[in-house]
């Protein structure tokens, strides 16, 4: 500083040029998130789309080679893949169906407050807070025919004749469904509870004055009022069911044979497990994505109709 320069006043106003406009501020907040999304989501999405048209292997030490629709052609003409899709569909329908019924039922039971209802609700919610891998591992122990508790609970008290749920091709899928229902029914219950609590009491009071029965009240008041939230729960659970992976790997590894080889497990097998067919696995992942988008669209259209109607 020059000696003859006057010192600035102690309470100087900030220069107008240094002020950050609202637009700049908002961009400062948005861009880091956008960059993160582009790097972590958007780029891999498009890059994997590109890879699905190549014969790329992540460990082959050679660049991707364009092969057009060959991966899709091979996958869609493979009976095993269609079998895995059918299996995943069956799993999704049964599992989500049971979760909806049980979750909704639990919500109806817990709708009215009673002593200890808060504690019971919290306890019921615990399974969905656990890691699916951990759940898979401890249910594997519970399903063990020798020392697992599950067979005892369902009435098979003799380990010598009790079913081996995870080693039986006819039962393995049901074992996975049972664990999925146990884990995720509370999620459906939670959404239904919030829907039920939003129904105004005067609707039921008016129905009671008109001498409407319990079944009529349920069909004409409860169900239509909860339906939007119930459909959202079903939508989320259906998407998750199509992506079922960690629970299956923890319980059966896709076996025995291919009895529980869900489509996500098949993608994993193709992408890793010594195969590293990255291109073909990407193509299969895109086929699954298209199916999930289609199914979600059906749900969303139904949801909109319910809301309008």
């Amino acid at each position, binding site marked *: 500083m020059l000696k003859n320069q006057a010192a600035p006043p102690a309470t100087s106003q900030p220069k107008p040029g240094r002020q950050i406009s609202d637009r700049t501020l908002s961009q400062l907040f948005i861009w880091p998130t956008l960059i993160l999304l582009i790097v972590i989501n958007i780029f891999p999405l498009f890059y994997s789309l590109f890879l699905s048209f190549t014969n790329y292997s992540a460990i082959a030490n050679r660049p991707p080679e364009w092969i057009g629709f060959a991966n899709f052609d091979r996958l869609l003409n493979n009976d095993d893949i269609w079998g895995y899709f059918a299996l995943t569909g069956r799993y999704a329908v049964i599992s989500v169906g049971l979760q909806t019924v049980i979750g909704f039922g639990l919500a109806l039971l817990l709708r009215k407050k009673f002593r200890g209802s808060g504690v019971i609700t919290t306890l019921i919610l615990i399974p969905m807070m656990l890691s699916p891998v951990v759940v898979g591992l401890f249910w594997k122990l519970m399903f063990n025919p020798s020392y697992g508790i599950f067979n005892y609970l369902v009435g098979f008290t003799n380990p*010598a004749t009790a079913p081996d749920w995870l*080693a039986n091709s006819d039962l393995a899928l049901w074992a996975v469904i049972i664990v999925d229902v146990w884990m995720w029914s509370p999620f459906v219950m939670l959404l239904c509870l919030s829907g039920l609590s939003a129904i105004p009491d005067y609707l039921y009071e008016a129905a009671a004055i008109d001498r409407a029965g319990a079944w009529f009240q349920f069909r004409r008041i409860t169900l239509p009022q909860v339906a939007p939230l119930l459909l959202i729960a079903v939508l989320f659970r259906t998407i998750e069911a199509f992506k079922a992976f960690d629970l299956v790997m923890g319980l059966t590894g896709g076996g*025995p044979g291919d009895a529980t080889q869900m489509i996500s497990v098949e993608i994993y097998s193709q992408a890793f497990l*010594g195969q590293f067919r990255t291109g073909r696995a990407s193509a299969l992942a895109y086929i699954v994505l298209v199916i999930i988008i289609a199914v979600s669209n059906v749900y969303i259209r139904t949801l909109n109709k319910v809301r309008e109607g």
Partner: protein
Amino acid sequence: MSKNSRWLSALMIFALLALVSINVAVAQDGITELTILWAEWDPANYLQQIGNEYEAETGIKVNVIQEPWGSFYDRMAVEWAAQGDAYDMTVGDSQWIGQAVEQGHYLDLTDFLVSNGIDKTVTPATLQYYGEYPAGSGKYYAYPTEGDAVGWAYRKDLFEDPQNMADFEAKYGRPLQPPETWAELRDIAEFFTRPDDGIYGVGVYTQKDYDGMVMGFQNVFFSWGADWSRDGQVMGVVNSPEAVEALEFYKGLYQFAPPGTGNAFFAEMNDVFISGQAAMIMNYFAFFPALINPGVNPYAEVTGFFPGPKGPNGDQFVSLGGQGLSILSYISPERQEASKEFIKWFAQEEVQRRWAAVGGYTCNINVLESEEFLTNTPYNAAFADSMTFVKDFWNIPQFGELLEPAQTYLTGFVVGGEGTAQEAMDNIAEAQHEILVDAGVIDG
């Protein structure tokens, strides 16, 4: 600043620069650390112990990085794909070698091993399966480090119980003793299967996820005279009558396995043995140290071991386990040389003797034949015997693809009871034939 202090400052700066330049020179020329990637298991701890001895002798620190078995291959494969230099060496699985060599991940160690005479110090079978690629080429890419094979553990207290001995002899017309043939093993398994007492005859590998089922079945498959290919052919070989018969036999054995072992591999085998559920189990020898530890196994004092039995025509083979130590080709020439120095040190007979003493399964001929090794543990004699009749799955780059149909159809039939043995082997043969034709390994 005075003239003197200016001189002093200049001198100090000069001295500092000189020190820094000396340090840089040391860091560039001298390797102070070597990193080895291996699976997470006891032998890796033993290697770390040996590595600590190397550090004490040379000042070069050896780090053995351990990755769980489930993700070991993935971690290595990702490192290969990135051509990374995070690891100097890996103790890689025998099945990886084809892929690692063909894709240039492993350094050619032929001249190094031959010129130092290291190739002559290990058993030919281990050098062939852990180090050589392609088979019979005389090109080596790994030093056989951890020899391993599938062996058997059994409950001596049950076998030596007078009542059991009398009952068995009365029923089968021969004394109750560790089996020498698969037929004898089956009879013993049947004899000890007593669900009401909570005990079963035999524990066998059935795991679906990676290669467990194949590694278990191969012991029967090879001993029945079957193979994964013959004269460049798969069709008619993989689904040969011997192969089908072997599969039916393996499924028969599974009937005598403890319930809940439908997706079982090495950990589950030890579990059912330690919990007293199985009279006999198959397992890699590398997992047997736990069975002689009374703190882990309540039957440790009465646990015996025997090698894989013979098939109906006298053929005797067991699935190969174990790994060889390879140098990764993406590290600097200095680190490659330092890694070779470590292997040279490690391959010395005296070091191999210590490696065996701490629990490692040496492949050194002299150590394997020594009385000290054979009597060091109750299973070492069976191990040394087994290493003379080991046989492996494919080790070409397509091994992972070839495993997948084998795992699926074998578990489907053995565990899930799907279809027939003939159908399972036909499906495997067809799928493997297609993979090998696509890869140009065999003619269509």
